[in-house]
């Protein structure tokens, strides 16, 4: 391998002569330039805009790499796993953080100054971003999931949404509120395949139907009645009361559908609320209401926990500068700046107690307390009714889960469009997960 690389070096050097003369080198960087990889969510785009203040204050410069979520994840994972050293700050989730932390791929984030007020950050969020008792990422925002609904439609139909709905009730509401002639659909749910898309939602549904991914010996449980009931329920409800093309709807697409008045109910991330309540971006800003995520049989794992967080790869050569940016962008002061510049409705939610004690935020964001509760009660360590060997509610915190979640997500999407039956989808899913776990050495 070393040998090949050397040979390549000479061959490539010859090739480069021609190209290199033309191009010069783009490697020249000053010590105070950091490269940040982030997702193109509106919160991060805002951070990018405001970061010129930090650049001015500190004299450092930021190179931004803004990519859509899937591309970003590939890019960042390839780089960190091969120690490519392309980035100084990574935007990663609560799924990756503990796994990468355990591999020592990330810089441990201790020694933040008192002014940062680490105790102000929700303990449950900090715990989700830690491994072996060390913090490996600081939260930029955190979310749980709950039910959005259209108050005007419920009132018109004479329906009342309970504070803790059951899935049977949701189904009845969806039936009454579906009006296909007017492109109004009773329920919008994720259908786009992906471990962070349809499977995120479906995992919570399976949890509350009493199911689990693995038993205590890592034996896959996808052929159990709980999975079958949950998936059948989901598919039946989506067929009857969901929008057409649901199999390509993820978080974004559903948010767009809801914001333009096509959905009566939507069960998804709490972080979607800011936009739906924003009059500039939502046609239903004065009609949207929310309640807890529904439960079916057991309350365990019916709503999820996720955090987008900022971390520093151990390959970074600018750890000190990167830390200073982390402290700035996840500070109380930053949240206040966003509140002042863009309005309190859209500040990064779910990370700090102080945000939820701020009267301006409580006034601008009617969903604030609800979100805080949902985040506090999402129990990553006990996600299911039966015992499991893993943590994580809408994911399983093992490296293999991206593969597993993606494949199973594809099967479920196949069943959703009627390409295969629920039985076949789950049978294939079980076989595929069993093979992956065997290959990875969890089971014999």
């Amino acid at each position, binding site marked *: 391998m070393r040998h*090949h*690389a050397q040979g*390549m*070096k000479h061959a*490539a050097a010859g*090739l*480069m002569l*021609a*190209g*290199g003369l*033309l*191009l010069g*080198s*783009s*490697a020249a960087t000053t010590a105070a330039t950091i*490269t940040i*990889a982030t997702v*193109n*969510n*509106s919160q991060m*785009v805002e951070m*990018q*805009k405001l970061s010129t203040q930090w650049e001015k204050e500190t004299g450092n410069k930021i*190179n*931004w*790499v*803004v*990519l*859509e979520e899937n*591309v970003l994840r*590939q*890019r960042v994972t*390839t780089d960190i796993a*091969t*120690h*490519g*050293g*392309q*980035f100084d700050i990574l935007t990663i989730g609560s799924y990756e953080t503990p796994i990468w932390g355990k591999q020592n791929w990330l810089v441990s984030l201790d020694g933040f100054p008192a002014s940062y007020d680490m105790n102000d950050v929700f303990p449950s969020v900090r715990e989700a971003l830690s491994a072996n008792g060390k913090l490996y990422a600081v939260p930029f925002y955190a979310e749980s999931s709950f039910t959005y609904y259209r108050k005007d439609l419920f009132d018109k139909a004479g329906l009342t949404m309970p504070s803790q709905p059951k899935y049977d009730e949701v189904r009845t509401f969806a039936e009454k509120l579906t009006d296909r002639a007017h*492109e109004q659909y009773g329920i919008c749910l994720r259908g786009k395949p992906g471990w962070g898309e349809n499977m995120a939602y479906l995992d919570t549904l399976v949890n509350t139907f009493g199911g689990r991914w693995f038993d205590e010996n890592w034996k896959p449980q996808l052929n159990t009645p709980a999975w079958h009931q949950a998936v059948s329920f989901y598919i039946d409800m989506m067929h009857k009361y969901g929008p057409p093309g649901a199999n390509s709807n*993820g*978080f*974004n*697409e559903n*948010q*767009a559908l809801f*914001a*333009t008045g096509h959905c009566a109910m939507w069960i998804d991330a709490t972080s*979607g609320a800011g*936009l739906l309540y924003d009059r500039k*971006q939502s*046609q239903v800003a004065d009609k949207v209401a929310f309640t807890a995520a529904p439960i079916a049989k057991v309350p365990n794992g019916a709503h999820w926990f996720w955090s987008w967080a900022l971390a520093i790869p151990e390959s970074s050569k600018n750890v000190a500068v990167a830390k200073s940016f982390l402290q700035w962008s996840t500070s109380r002061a930053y949240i206040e700046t966003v509140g002042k510049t863009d309005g309190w409705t859209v500040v990064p939610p779910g990370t700090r107690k102080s945000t939820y004690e701020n009267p301006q935020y409580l006034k601008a964001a009617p969903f604030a307390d609800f979100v805080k509760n949902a985040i506090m009660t999402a129990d990553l360590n006990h996600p299911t009714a039966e015992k499991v060997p893993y943590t994580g509610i809408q994911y399983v915190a093992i490296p293999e889960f991206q593969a597993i979640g993606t494949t199973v997500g594809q099967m479920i999407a196949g069943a959703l469009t009627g390409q295969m039956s629920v039985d076949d989808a789950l049978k294939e899913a079980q076989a595929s997960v069993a093979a992956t776990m065997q290959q990875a050495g969890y089971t014999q």
Partner: protein
Amino acid sequence: MSKAPLRIAVAIAWLAALLNFFPLAWMLLASFKTEVQAIASPPLFFFRPTLDNYRGIFAQQDYASFALNSIVISLATTLLMLLLAVPAAFAMAFYPGAKTRDLLLWMLSTKMLPAVGVLVPIYLLARDLHLLDTLTALVIVNTLSNLPIAVWMLFTFFRETPKDIIEASRIDGANVLQTIFLVLLPLVLPGIASTSLLSIILCWNEAFWSLNLSAHNAAPLTAFIASFSAPQGLFWARLSAASVLAIAPILVFGWISQRQLVRGLTFGAVK
């Protein structure tokens, strides 16, 4: 052809052209709408155009830097590729050996390897050579992946050139390089031009390597698009505007050069 069928034929040709272009026109239209107008049902054909999407994009991303990278990568690749391909095609066309055909076919078959299968090896190599996020890396990769096509195209061109001229020049005492530069090149300029055009188009639109080997310094327009596809909320209009910005330079370039492209894009099919 008599009058009536001719008219029908022309009408069909125009209709097909308009239909084929329609998706692009529809996108252009969407880029001047507000987000709500962009997904209005029934769709809007007449509305008050806004430049907000474009303004938003310029405020958010440094378009010029992405576009400049695309231009540099396309041009440098094409130049490097010609330097490699012209001599090879010349040798194959004018001094073919027993293995020439096999060589040519082998070159083409390298084009059929799925890039994603060798991403990790290439990433590791680029890391060890300190080429990650450099234009050099993208130029090398693009050059190598387009080289087979270029050799093939040039080969078919050169083959159509009368041999006598080359031989006459050799007898006059010119060496190989002089022959290539002074005698052959002027004759096959249309072929070289269209090979270059095709190479520029392919480089401009290459997305896989551009995304995976670049971060900030070398990121071209295909990476620019990846920062606008499917963000949160309503995104159709802004994405349309970003798409227009990403394809406009190459589209205009293609329109201007299409006559040249047509003349050369035969791959030896025309006798």
